[in-house]
């Protein structure tokens, strides 16, 4: 039996395969397709201190080899989440990573404080959502703001934290270093790349929000490049994502320096993707005589 275990900030995952926030709900919807017990972790949809309505529709549009979304972080608020979603996920033998969003530092901190006493394994702080007008990405595009919010969150969180980085910056390593310096235990990247689509027949924006976040296979090379750059700039572990559709894709991220990997938009295309990535990774290890999956992390220099 090959060893697929990985460790991030003292938390051991049975394998590196996770779900990307916002593409898997809290696992309930996809539990009909995938046995959640076989995943390294479920990363949940962003949750705020109070319920958010999100953006008007259309919220999603297809693009060549990918999709744009501008959901606007619709969520039921942390109180409902704690009552409903965490107990659901606790039934499974998988790690729970809760993604947190907010409009101000105090919003984030309120959620983090409430989560601190919950039986979850880690928190992922989304400072990189391009689809909300206030907060969100503002923290993810300025290293000083990122440093500040990371410090505040770190003060209150009893679990290790993961800062989720935006690709919509000139130099992502600068952001990664700021988060590391402020005490972030790990990083995840990339969030979606801001994009736009125009309906030429209606002469209008295809998304009600005008812009949206691009994800899916179309962004994979950008994501792999950024994971590589960040892995060479910081010491903390990385969860890599962006267009992962297969074990081969996931292995690229790991060889570029990611310890964990997450499947996002491809869940929509093939609801069995996560399971297939786990299986494909094991097959690859078998075929290539790799004893421990950790042996390949960052092996491409």
């Amino acid at each position, binding site marked *: 039996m090959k060893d697929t275990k990985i460790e991030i900030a003292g938390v051991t995952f049975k394998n590196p395969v996770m779900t990307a926030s916002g593409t898997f709900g809290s696992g309930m919807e996809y539990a009909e397709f995938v046995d959640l017990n076989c995943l390294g972790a479920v990363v949940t949809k962003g949750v705020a201190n109070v319920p958010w309505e999100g953006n008007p*529709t259309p919220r999603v549009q297809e693009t060549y080899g990918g999709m744009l*979304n501008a959901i606007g972080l619709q969520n039921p608020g942390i109180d409902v989440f704690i009552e409903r979603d965490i107990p659901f996920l606790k039934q499974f033998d998988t790690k729970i990573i809760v993604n947190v969003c907010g409009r101000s530092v105090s919003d984030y901190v309120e959620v983090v404080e409430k989560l601190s006493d919950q039986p979850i394994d880690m928190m992922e702080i989304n400072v990189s959502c391009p689809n909300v007008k206030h907060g969100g990405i503002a923290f993810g595009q300025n290293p000083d703001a990122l440093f500040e919010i990371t410090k505040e969150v770190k003060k209150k969180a009893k679990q290790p934290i993961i800062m989720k980085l935006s690709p919509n910056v000139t130099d992502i390593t600068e952001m990664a270093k700021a988060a590391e310096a402020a005490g972030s235990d790990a990083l995840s990247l990339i969030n979606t790349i801001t994009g736009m689509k125009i309906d030429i027949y209606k002469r209008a924006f295809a998304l009600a929000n005008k812009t949206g976040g691009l994800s899916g296979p179309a962004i994979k090379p950008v994501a792999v490049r950024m994971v590589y750059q960040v892995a060479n700039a910081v010491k903390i572990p990385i969860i890599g994502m962006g267009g992962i559709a297969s074990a081969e894709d996931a292995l690229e991220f790991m060889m570029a320096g990611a310890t964990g990997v997450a499947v996002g938009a491809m869940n929509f295309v093939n609801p069995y993707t996560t399971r297939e990535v786990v299986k494909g990774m094991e097959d690859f290890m078998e075929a290539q005589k790799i004893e421990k999956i950790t042996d390949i992390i960052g092996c491409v220099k």
Partner: protein
Amino acid sequence: MSKKKEQAVVYSQQNIATGIYDMWIQTSLAKDAKPGQFISVYPQDKSTLLPRPISICEIDKENSRLRIVYRVAGKGTAEFSGYQKADKIDVLGTLGNGFPLEKAEGKRVFLIGGGIGIPPMLETAKQLAGKTKETNVILGYRNSELFLKEDFEKYANLFIATEDGSVGTKGNVLTAISEKGLEADIIFACGPMPMLRALKQYAAEKQIPAYISLEERMACGVGACLGCVVKTREVDHHSHVKNARICTDGPVYLADDVEI
């Protein structure tokens, strides 16, 4: 009633009107399918990743087949229209809630379809046959290309409205209803948004329930991405905001419950 994605097989395909195709597929999804539900159909071309939601037009449980009738609207449906018998087709289903047939039993019912909203009304008419006090099907077409007309005639009284006036009442389904003096205790409908809005208002005036099937851009089709929401009058039980997911809580809603 679990959902799954599987490779179905095309059993037959016909072009039944300009740009409109009629396909029967062999699939295990037929077993649990209900009228008003839909399936997600996936193009093979990997530049078009997202599933295409298509309503179930007819169900043949005995032979494990589903019928879909669709209009070529873009790349995905253009690809489907080229499929032939025995070709493989990736589908996910069955999705959505479907029409609440039990609410129509013993009542006078309108089944209303407009344009490419006509197909899901067929299985609805079939399953309601003999169970209502009276079923009037009112279909709105653009012109004299009356796809599925003969199928509906088997199950109910049929009234037709055409935009160009070439057949039946000139105008829309509501013009036909008033011209023929039709009345109902409950409405089931699918069609373009202006028609659904008009029906919502009509039902409110008549103080009868109208169940309408809605459309929105979808990504997951299973309730996970929150892409396909409709504004609701009350706070939704799942989202805890005034938004419900059309792919899971719908596509059929009581018109009074949604802001359209």
